[in-house]
C-alpha cells in the first residue's frame, strides 16, 4: 500500500460509485487493481480514468485503425517517406525532399465547443498547434472542418458565431494562417457541433523531436503556463455523450491564451534548435501532466518521478488529483540533457516563461508522483499506455439502411424537375449555407499572415508556399467529408470523402501525398454506431491503399450524440498534396470569355444522398453515389497531366449540388464572366439528376478554345469520358440548354444569393 495521505479528500476509500463517476467499468477497475496489485488512491484512479478514456487510449477503435496504411509505397529516397508514423508520436511526419519534412495532424474539440463554443474552439486550435511544434516543426498553416445544425436555429447561430470567433481569436494571435476548411449545416449536428482543427508545420529531418523520456537522471522540465483547476478531466468528459447536464461540466472546458502559446512556440523552437539540449518533449494536452509524463516514460522504456510542489500553480491549495488531471493550456513537458539545465532556463527567461525542474527520468518503469513529501501515485507506465483495455465492439447494420439504400426517385414517384423548378432549384442550392460562400467565416480568420498563402480560402484547396531554408515548395491542402453519404452508406461515404479530397487537390494542380483523419461518431457501445464507424474506417483504408496515400496521424471523437441521437457519421479526411511547379497551381475560377468548358467523367445520373434531395425535397435518402476507384484514378491522373501540360485554365470538382452548382461557382471569381452550356446532348435519365445529382468522379475544366480538341482526344486515349458542354461568355448570364428547353440566370443574381446567404443569417443589427 501507499502511505496514507494526510489530506482526507485524497484518502477517501474507492467505492463503486466513485469508479462509475470516473467512467470506468467494474471490469476495468478490476484491471486497475491487477496492474497495481492493490487498491488505487484517488489520484491514481483519476490517472487511470483519463488515460483509459477513449480520447487517450483508443480502446474501442485501435483494432480498426490497424487497417490504415502507414507507409507510402511510392516513396523514394528523397521524397514521400513517412519519417514518423501514425500513432508513434503527437503528429506524423513525411519527407518532402532536400532534407525537409512536414508534420501535420487534425484533432477534434467537439464537446468543449458544444458547451462553450468560443473557448472550446480556441483551445482546439491551441492544442493542435502544440502537437505540431512539439515535433520540432514550425507551424505554418491551419485549416478546420466544422459541422453545425441548420443555420435557421438561434442555437446554431450562437455556436457558429462562437466557434468562428474562437478559432479567429486563437489562430490570428499566434500568427498561423487559417488557409481553408469545410463547413456543413445539417440537423444531425444540432446541439453537437463538430470542430476539427488541423495544423501543419515544416522542419528539417534533423530537427525531428520525439516525446520520449530517456537517460537515467535526466531532469524533467515543465514549461509554459501555470496549472489551474480548469479543464479538470477534459479527456474523460470528451468520452461521454452530451446531455442536458453537460453544461455543468463547464469546468471541463479549458481557457486558451494564444499569446502564451505564441511565446511557447518561439521559446520551444529556440530551445530545440540548440544541439543535444532536448532529449524529449511532449505537450500537455488531453490529460495534461498525467498523459505527458507516463507517455514519454512509456515510449522511452523508462520511469519518471515528479514532484508536484515544484509545478507552477496559479491557484492555491490544489491537491495532487487536481494538478495531475488539470488540462490548463499552453504547457509542455521537456526532458533535458543532464547538466544543461542552465541552457534551457536561459531560453525561457528570455521569453519570460516558467521553466521548472519538476522531476527526473528513472529506470524503474514506474511513474511516481509526490506531493508534500507523500507518494500519491506509483504506477507502472505501461499499465497506463499499452495496458489500456482494448475492445472489439459489436457492430449491427442500422435498420434504416433497409429503406434508404433501395430508395429511388422512380420507386418513390418523385416528379422530375420542369424548367421553372430547375430555375428555382439552382437559386435555392446556391444560397443554402452548406453550399453558399463561406466568406463570412474566413474573412474573420487571418489567412495571409506568414505571407505564403497562394490560393486564398474559397477555392477547391488552399495552396501555400513553404519557405524551406533558401528554397521554396508549394503544397495544397483540402478537407472533406459529406456525412450525409456516410449516413446512407458508411463504406461508400468514406470512400467518397477520400476521393473527393484527392480530386480537390488534383484540381489545384497537386499530387496527393499523405492524409490525416478525424473520426467523428456516436457512442460506440451502440452496435449501429459501431457499424458506421467500422464501415467508414474500412472505406478510408481501402481508398488510402488504392491511391497510395498513407495515414500519418489522426484523432477519434466518439460519443457525438445529443439527446436527439447520434450525428451523421463524419470521418473527416484532410490530405496534403505537393505541387511540382508554381505554374501548375490551378484555381476554380474562369478568368475570361471564350474559354471552352469540358465536363470530365460523364453526365451525372444519381440523386441519392444529394443536397438537392435535402434542400428541395427535404429528404435524406437513397444510396450514396457510386464510387469507381480505377475510373477515379484515371480521371485524376489525366487531369493532372493536362494541368502540367499547361492546358487547363480552371478546374472545379463536382460535389454538393452537382453540375449546375459547380458551373455557377466557376463564374464567381474576380472576373465577372458568364457561361453558355448545352446539356441537351448528354444522356440523362432525369433532368434533376443531370443538373444537381452528385455522381462521383466528375470535374469541370476550362480550356482555351484552341486546345479543346487536343484535350478531348487525350481524354479518349486515357479512357476518361469528356464532353465539351459550352463556353464562357461576356454577357453576364448563365444560360443552359436542356432537353426540356432553355434555362437562364443573371450571374450577378446567383452570386449575390451565394455570397450573402450566411452573412445575412448572421447579421447583427447596427453592426457592419
Amino acid at each position, binding site marked *: 500500500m501507499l502511505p496514507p495521505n494526510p489530506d482526507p479528500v485524497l484518502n477517501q476509500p474507492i467505492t463503486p460509485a466513485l469508479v462509475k463517476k470516473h467512467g470506468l467499468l467494474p471490469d476495468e477497475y478490476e484491471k486497475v487493481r491487477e496492474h497495481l496489485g492493490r487498491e488505487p488512491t484517488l489520484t491514481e484512479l483519476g490517472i487511470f480514468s483519463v488515460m483509459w478514456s477513449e480520447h487517450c487510449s483508443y480502446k474501442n477503435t485501435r483494432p480498426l485503425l490497424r487497417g490504415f496504411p502507414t507507409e507510402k509505397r511510392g516513396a523514394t529516397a528523397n521524397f514521400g517517406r513517412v519519417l514518423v508514423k501514425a500513432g508513434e508520436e503527437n503528429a506524423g511526419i513525411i519527407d518532402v525532399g532536400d532534407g525537409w519534412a512536414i508534420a501535420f495532424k487534425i484533432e477534434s474539440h467537439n464537446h468543449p465547443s458544444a458547451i462553450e463554443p468560443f473557448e472550446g474552439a480556441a483551445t482546439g486550435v491551441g492544442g493542435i498547434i502544440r502537437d505540431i511544434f512539439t515535433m520540432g516543426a514550425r507551424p505554418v498553416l491551419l485549416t478546420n472542418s466544422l459541422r453545425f445544425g441548420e443555420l435557421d436555429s438561434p442555437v446554431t447561430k450562437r455556436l457558429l458565431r462562437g466557434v468562428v*470567433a474562437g478559432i*479567429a481569436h486563437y489562430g*490570428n*494571435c*499566434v*500568427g498561423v494562417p487559417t488557409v481553408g476548411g469545410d463547413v456543413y449545416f445539417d440537423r444531425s449536428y444540432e446541439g453537437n457541433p463538430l470542430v476539427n482543427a488541423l495544423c501543419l508545420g515544416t522542419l528539417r529531418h534533423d530537427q525531428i523531436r520525439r516525446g520520449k523520456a530517456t537517460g537515467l537522471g535526466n531532469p524533467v522540465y515543465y514549461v509554459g503556463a501555470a496549472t489551474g483547476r480548469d479543464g479538470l478531466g477534459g479527456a474523460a468528459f470528451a468520452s461521454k455523450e452530451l446531455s442536458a447536464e453537460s453544461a455543468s461540466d463547464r469546468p471541463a472546458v479549458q481557457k486558451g*491564451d*494564444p*499569446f*502564451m502559446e*505564441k*511565446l511557447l512556440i518561439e521559446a520551444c523552437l529556440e530551445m530545440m534548435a540548440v544541439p543535444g539540449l532536448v532529449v524529449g518533449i511532449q505537450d500537455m494536452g488531453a490529460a495534461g501532466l498525467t498523459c505527458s509524463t507516463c507517455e514519454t516514460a512509456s515510449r522511452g522504456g523508462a520511469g519518471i518521478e515528479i514532484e508536484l510542489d515544484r509545478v507552477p500553480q496559479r491557484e492555491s491549495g490544489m491537491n495532487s488529483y487536481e494538478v495531475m488531471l488539470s488540462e490548463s493550456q499552453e504547457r509542455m513537458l521537456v526532458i533535458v540533457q543532464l547538466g544543461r539545465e542552465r541552457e534551457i532556463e536561459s531560453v525561457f527567461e*528570455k*521569453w*519570460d516563461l516558467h521553466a521548472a525542474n519538476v522531476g527526473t527520468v528513472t529506470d524503474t518503469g514506474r511513474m511516481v508522483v509526490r506531493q508534500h513529501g507523500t507518494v500519491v501515485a506509483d504506477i507502472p507506465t505501461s499499465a497506463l499506455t499499452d495496458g489500456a483495455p482494448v475492445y472489439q465492439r459489436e457492430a449491427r447494420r442500422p435498420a434504416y439502411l433497409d429503406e434508404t439504400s433501395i430508395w429511388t426517385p422512380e420507386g418513390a414517384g418523385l416528379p422530375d424537375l420542369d424548367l421553372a423548378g430547375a430555375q428555382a432549384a439552382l437559386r435555392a442550392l446556391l444560397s443554402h449555407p452548406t453550399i453558399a460562400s463561406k466568406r463570412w467565416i*474566413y*474573412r*474573420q*480568420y*487571418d*489567412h*495571409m*499572415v*506568414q*505571407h505564403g498563402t*497562394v490560393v486564398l480560402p474559397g477555392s477547391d484547396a488552399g495552396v501555400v*508556399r513553404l519557405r524551406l531554408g533558401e528554397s521554396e515548395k508549394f503544397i495544397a491542402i483540402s478537407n472533406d467529408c459529406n456525412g450525409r453519404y456516410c449516413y446512407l452508406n458508411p463504406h461508400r461515404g468514406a470512400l467518397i470523402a477520400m476521393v473527393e479530397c484527392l480530386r480537390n487537390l488534383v484540381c489545384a494542380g497537386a499530387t496527393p501525398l499523405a492524409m490525416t483523419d478525424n473520426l467523428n461518431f456516436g457512442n460506440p457501445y451502440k452496435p449501429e454506431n459501431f457499424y458506421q464507424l467500422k464501415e467508414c474506417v474500412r472505406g478510408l483504408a481501402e481508398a488510402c491503399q488504392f491511391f497510395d496515400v498513407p495515414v500519418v496521424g489522426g484523432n477519434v471523437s466518439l460519443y457525438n450524440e445529443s439527446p436527439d441521437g447520434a450525428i451523421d457519421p463524419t470521418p473527416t479526411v484532410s490530405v496534403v498534396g505537393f505541387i511540382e511547379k*508554381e505554374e501548375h*497551381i490551378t484555381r476554380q475560377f474562369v478568368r475570361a470569355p471564350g474559354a471552352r468548358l469540358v465536363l470530365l467523367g460523364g453526365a451525372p445520373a444519381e440523386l441519392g444522398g444529394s443536397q438537392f434531395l435535402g434542400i428541395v425535397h427535404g429528404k435524406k435518402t437513397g444510396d450514396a453515389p457510386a464510387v469507381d476507384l480505377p475510373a477515379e484514378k484515371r480521371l485524376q491522373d489525366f487531369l493532372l497531366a493536362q494541368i502540367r501540360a499547361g492546358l487547363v485554365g480552371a478546374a472545379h470538382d463536382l460535389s454538393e449540388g452537382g453540375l449546375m452548382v459547380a458551373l455557377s461557382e466557376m463564374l464567381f471569381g474576380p472576373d465577372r464572366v458568364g457561361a453558355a452550356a448545352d446539356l441537351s446532348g448528354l444522356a440523362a435519365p432525369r433532368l434533376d439528376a443531370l443538373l444537381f445529382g452528385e455522381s462521383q468522379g466528375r470535374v469541370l475544366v476550362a480550356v482555351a478554345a484552341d486546345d479543346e480538341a487536343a484535350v478531348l482526344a487525350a481524354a479518349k486515349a486515357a479512357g476518361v469520358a469528356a464532353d465539351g458542354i459550352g463556353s464562357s461568355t461576356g454577357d453576364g448570364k448563365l444560360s443552359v440548354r436542356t432537353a426540356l428547353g432553355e434555362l437562364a440566370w443573371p450571374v450577378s443574381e446567383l452570386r449575390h444569393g451565394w455570397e450573402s446567404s450566411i452573412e445575412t443569417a448572421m447579421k*447583427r443589427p447596427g*453592426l*457592419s
Partner: protein
Amino acid sequence: MNIAVLQFPGSNCDQDAYHLFATGLGVPTRYVWHKERSLGETDLVVIPGGFAYGDYLRCGAIARFSPIMGAVHEYAGKGGLVFGICNGFQILCEAGLLPGALIRNRSLEYRCLTCDLAVEDAGPVFNTAALGRRIRLPIGHGEGNYRIDAAGRASLETNRQVLLRYVENPNGSQGDIAGVRNEEGNVFGMMPHPDRAFERFHPSRDGLAVVRTILSARFPKMIRRSA
C-alpha cells in the same frame, strides 16, 4: 542601407516585414529584440504586425513600455524614419509618436481581406505622384477603427498627414483613414499590410511601392512607381 525590424513578444508579422525588405527590396535587414536598449545604426525602424503582449489591456498599451521604445523615441526625435504596420501602427499611436487611436472594428469582428486604398498627397514623399491614385493592400485586424478628436482630425487634414483612405471602409475608421504620418513626416503608420503585397503570388505588389516611397524620405533614389 540597414533596416531594423523590432520584435516584441507576440509580434507575428516580424518575418513578413523582414522578407518584404530583405527579399522584396533586397536591402540589408535585421531583427531587434524588444529588450534591447539601442537600435544600432539603422536607416528605418519597422514595427511589424502581430499581437504584441497579446494585445492585452489595449493593443500597443504594454508594448510601448518595452525597453527598446526609449531608443525609438530618441531616434524619431532626431528625425529617424519609423514605420509601423498594423499592430506597429497601434503601438506608435499608444506611444504618442502618431496621433489618434485604434479601437475595435465596427463589426466587432476581425477582418482579413484585400482593400482598395486611395493614396493621399501627404507631403514630399508619400503622394500620388510616387504611388498613383489607387493601390491595393491586404488588411488583417480586429482593431483598426481609427479615432481622433475633432481638433486632431482637423490638424491631420490641414497638415496633409493622412497617407491612405479605404475606398470601402472595412472597420468604421473616421474619414476612412487607413494610415497617417506625424507632422514632421518621419513617422508613418498604417493598418494595411505592405508585407503581404510583394511576392509574385500576392494580391498585389503595391507593398514594394509603399516602402520604397517611405525610404525615399532618406534615399531619394528609391522613388519609383510600382509595377
